[in-house]
């Protein structure tokens, strides 16, 4: 059951990621990326990380991608132009990329062992909160400063030129 769900979600994620690359309209790429994120949220559930799964849906697919789609529609981003590949990239680069990918898969499957056990940890949200607010409370507070800086930076950058004086 877990294996079936894994392969289903993995196939959806990879197909949507390929679609992100192949689509020429930015809005279609953005929708593909939302599908990738939803599939990854399902995989997180399979791995027993229900809190991160919910955060993935709410923050990534909800907030960040809405921001992307907002900007795409604001800028009226149209079809992008294709660039042509060099012949060397096609005849040398592609086979080398496949060799590298196959080697990567081979070494990963040789080095990493063990099975991911989802059910063994039980509910993970409470220990995660304990960890976040005890061991990692200083980085947690630092992220609030980071977000404050990001808000100020985004407002300053996106402000119109004639309002500067």
């Amino acid at each position: 059951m877990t294996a079936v769900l894994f392969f289903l979600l993995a196939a959806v994620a990879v197909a949507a990621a390929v679609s992100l690359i192949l689509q020429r309209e930015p809005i279609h790429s953005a929708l593909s990326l939302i599908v990738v994120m939803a599939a990854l949220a399902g995989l997180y559930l399979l791995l027993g990380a229900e809190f991160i799964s919910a955060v993935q849906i709410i923050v990534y697919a909800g907030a960040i991608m809405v921001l992307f789609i907002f900007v795409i529609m604001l800028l009226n981003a149209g079809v992008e132009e294709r660039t042509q590949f060099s012949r060397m990239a096609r005849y040398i680069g592609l086979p080398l990329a496949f060799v590298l990918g196959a080697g990567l898969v081979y070494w990963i499957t040789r080095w990493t062992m063990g099975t991911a056990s989802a059910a063994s940890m039980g509910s993970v949200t409470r220990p995660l909160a304990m960890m976040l607010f005890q061991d990692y409370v200083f980085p947690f507070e630092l992220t609030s400063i980071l977000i404050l800086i990001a808000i100020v930076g985004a407002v300053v950058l996106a402000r119109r030129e004639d309002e500067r004086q």
Partner: protein
Amino acid sequence: MVPVSYYVVLSAVLFGLGIIGFLFKRNIITMFMSIELMLNAVNLAFIAFSSVLGNLAGQVYVFFVIVVAAAEAAVGLAIVILIARNRKTLNVERVNLLKL
């Protein structure tokens, strides 16, 4: 049960697709989305190892990665708006000056 190596391979595949998107796309917003895809791939590897090792620190790191990605998206998209307003294009090949 699914071996953790499957998750790591899926993570590597998604990361590779993100790299391909970043290198081949010419629209600055799509390149930015490829970066988000790479961040997601790394998050998947973090959670897979967190699950197999029974250590929750990996999930805490994923939490921080998501926070940083949100901040990065806000600032990055502000820069994209600035570029689009000043250069009148989203094609990165036309954005070839150091000043905006």
